[in-house]
Every structure is written in structure tokens, then in C-alpha cells.
């Protein structure tokens, strides 16, 4: 049962991920991405990681995708019909061949990385409480991995500030020119 559900969800998530790239209407792209996130959250649940599943839906489903939709609606991209002309070229033989080769390479790298990854081998030596509950996860995150966790949050903060600075700098010369 759980296995069947896993394969179904994996298939659906890949299908909706393809939908993100192939759909012509940007709103449909966003909705496909949302569907993909949901399938991933279900897979996390099947693996017993309740917190990560909830966080996935809360952060990506509830907040980030809403912002995506918001921006797309504001941009008003209009008639998607203009994209049709490129379609014939998109699926030409060299392009498809290139995509297949790159995908195969990526898959190989991914499989190799998973095989080498310390995470897979460390699965047996996880703390006795495990990281599937909130308590266990918090204990690990704010105990053993506190420093990396804080470093990542600082990195994210720096990125956010950098984005604001970059976005502001573009505008200020115009204002100066006017006044």
C-alpha cells in the first residue's frame, strides 16, 4: 500500500514537474509546481517525516507559490499564443538528444552522490530519538548542527539584504536625475 502510494506520488511529482516546463500558460506552470510540491510532501509523510512535510506545504505551498501567482497576475503576460512558433525548434532532434544526454549525466551524478553520501550511510547511526518527530529534529538542529544551521540562516539573511540593496540601487540614479 505504502509502496504503491510512493510510486504513484513519485510518478505524479515527475509528471507535474514536466508540466512546469512544458505548460504554455504561466499560471498552469505555477499550479503544476504546486502539485509537484504536494506530491513531495506526501512522499515525506510516507517516509515518516511529518514536520518536513508540513513545513514544505506551509512554506512553499502556502507562501512562496502564492507570491509567484501574485507576481504573474500583476505582470499580465497576456496571450501565450506567441510561444507556439518556437515549439517546432524546441523538439528538433539535436535538442532532444542534448536533453537526453544531459539528463542521463545528471541522473548518473545524482545516483553516484547518493551512493557516496554520508547521509545514507549515517542512517543507522542517527540519534535514538530519530529526526522524524519535531522534538528529535529540533534536538539535532539546535544541538549538534547548530553552527551550520545558524550559518545557513545568516547566508539567507545576507542574500535577502543583497537583493534589497541591488533592487534599490537601480532606481536611485533616476531619482537623482529628476531632481
Amino acid at each position, binding site marked *: 500500500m505504502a509502496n504503491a502510494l510512493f510510486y504513484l506520488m513519485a510518478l505524479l511529482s515527475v509528471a507535474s514537474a514536466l508540466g512546469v516546463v512544458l505548460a504554455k500558460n504561466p*499560471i498552469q506552470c505555477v499550479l503544476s509546481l504546486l502539485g509537484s510540491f504536494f506530491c513531495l510532501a506526501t512522499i515525506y509523510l510516507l517516509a515518516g517525516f511529518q514536520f518536513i512535510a*508540513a*513545513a514544505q*506545504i*506551509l512554506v512553499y*505551498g502556502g*507562501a512562496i507559490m*502564492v507570491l509567484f*501567482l501574485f507576481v504573474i497576475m500583476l505582470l499580465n503576460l497576456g496571450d501565450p499564443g506567441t510561444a507556439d512558433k518556437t515549439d517546432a525548434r524546441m523538439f528538433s532532434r539535436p535538442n532532444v538528444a542534448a536533453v537526453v544526454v544531459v539528463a542521463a549525466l545528471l541522473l548518473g551524478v545524482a545516483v553516484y552522490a547518493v551512493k557516496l553520501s554520508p547521509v545514507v550511510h549515517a542512517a543507522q547511526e542517527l540519534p535514538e530519538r530519530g529526526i522524524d518527530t519535531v522534538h528529535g529534529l529540533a534536538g539535532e538542529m539546535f544541538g549538534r548542527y547548530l553552527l551550520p544551521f545558524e550559518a545557513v540562516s545568516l547566508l539567507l539573511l545576507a542574500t535577502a539584504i543583497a537583493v534589497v540593496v541591488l533592487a534599490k540601487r537601480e532606481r536611485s540614479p533616476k531619482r537623482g536625475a529628476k531632481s
Partner: protein
Amino acid sequence: MIAWQDLLVMVLKIALIFGGLINVGALMTLAERKFSAWMQYRIGPNRVGPWGLLQPLADGVKFIFKESLMPDGANKALFRFAPVIAALPAFMTIAVIPFSNDIVIAGKNYGKLAIADLDIGVLFLLAIGGLSVYGVILGGWASNSKFSLMGGLRASAQMISYELTLILTILAVIALSGTLNLAEISDGQATIGTWNIWSQPLGFMLFVIAMFAETNRHPFDFAECEAELVAGFHTEYSAMKFALFFLGEYSAMTVISCLATVLFLGGPSVPFWVDAPWYVGFGAFIAKTSMFLFLFIWVRWTLPRFRFDQLMGLGWKVMLPLALFNLFVTGVFVSLGWNLWAKLGSLI
């Protein structure tokens, strides 16, 4: 194997909670009209049944027999899907609310009146509840109408802004009770002195304000805004699709009132009666939730609507800093172990 008695108890609980939610949604439409009439010196609906009690039923039948319109140029699939996704989250999230203490009938313990006792109950509620904004946005966009689109855009901006405050105030409660399980949170407030409203007065106020914005109710109902946007995101909707939006709004109000009861008012705890039987506790829960539901109606017919920039200013410049401050102070108290309120609670 699950014994068939357990299964029967589970099915009964689901039927009771789910049926209760839908009926409260229907009754709220009547209550809204009755109370608004009362506040405006009118009589309100009084033709269908005694005190107009059958009015929601009559409305339901009317909605079913109305013509369902599809606007020109609408995205058909999304137009049909949006009301469903607007109503679904409220129906899903009611599952984690614990309505009573352990039900004991003839010496046998049937557990709490709750469908699911999740360890991540609060997170589940927030995650699924946050999805209700899609119904409003997609409904607004798929209608192919400028009024609808404006309503949808406003709703998305508003709900994201106020969700932050809502989550931060809930985080402070979680920090106090040390668990994400709603049943354990309400268990931790068994006596009136330990209710979180005393230790989180600021958090409670922020939660109540954000609650109005999250459910798109007056004075924050910018998704509808009938004075300028006709009816906002559901301008183009008719018949049962419109009724689903309506049901979704009232169900969301009910769920968030239940959440406020669990988080701040001790859930099923009865003031000054610690070992009250479960049905008294259940009654207390219903009474507290009804109080919040009445507040929704009371505010709607009392206050005028904000301006949109005022709404955003309030959300980002006042409520968010206050919520952060509240969380910070709570964090300091918790980490230093100053449990002043538990001492006070033991006195009562």
C-alpha cells in the same frame, strides 16, 4: 486489525464533527442576518420556520436550483475548481481540533472528541489553512473580470501579510506549552489561571486581529469590498459555486474560532471546575467558540472597512513588530524559566 467498536467510534466522531461544522456554517448565515437585524433595529428573516430557523435550508435549496453561469473567456477548469479549494482547507483542518477531554461513557474511555490527534497538529492546521487563499486568487483570476482579479490580488497580499503575525503569535503559545500537539496544548490549560490568554495578552489581541484578516472578514474584507469591487473575487460566481465560497468562509471562521479557543482559552477547560465531566467541557468549548463567532458578526456590523494601504501599514508596521516583540519576550521568559503564570494558576 482495528476492532469494529473503535472503527464505529471513529466514524461517529467524524460524522459529528464534520456534520457539526457544515451545520454551524449554515446556521452562521442565519445568525449573521439575525444579529445584523438586531443591531440595526430590524427584525431579520422570520418567514421560514420559527424565528426563521429554516432559512438556511431554504437558501440552500435556492442555490441548488439557480442557474450556474460561466463567464465568457473564463478558464473553465480553474473556475470550477476554485470554490472547491476555497472550502476544502476548512473541512480538512477541523480534523485536528480537540473538542473535549477524554469521553468517558459508562466507565469506558473513548478518547477525545477529535478526528486526528497529530503531533504536528498546529503545523498541519497552518499549512492546510494557508491554502485557502488559492481559492480566492484562482477564483478571481479564472473569472476573467477586472473586479474579480483585483479582489483576488488584494486577498493574496492581505492573507500573506497577516499570516506572518498569526504564525508568530501561535509560535509564542507553542514556546510556552512546548508542544505542537493541539490536544496537549489544551491539556496544559486545565485551570482558568493557566489559560494562555493571561500569559499572552498581547499575543491574544494580535491573534484576534489577524484572525479577521485571515478569514477576509470585516473590517478587512478586501477580497470582496462590495463598495468598489462589486463583490470582489466571487463577482462572477452563482448558484452552488457561490454557496461553496460562502460555506468555505463560514467554515474557516469556525475553525479559526476553535483554534483561538484551544490556543488561548484552554479548550474544553471549565472555569473553577477542574474535574468537570467531558460533556460540560464540550459545552464550554462550544460556548467559547460561539463567543468568537459572535465577535466576527459584531465587528462586521459595527466597524467600517479599512483602506487597503492602511491595512498593509497595520499588518507590516504595527502587528508584525508587536508579534516579534511578543515572541521575543516569551522566549526570554521561557528560557529563563520564569513561570509566573503557573504560580498564579495554582492559586486559583
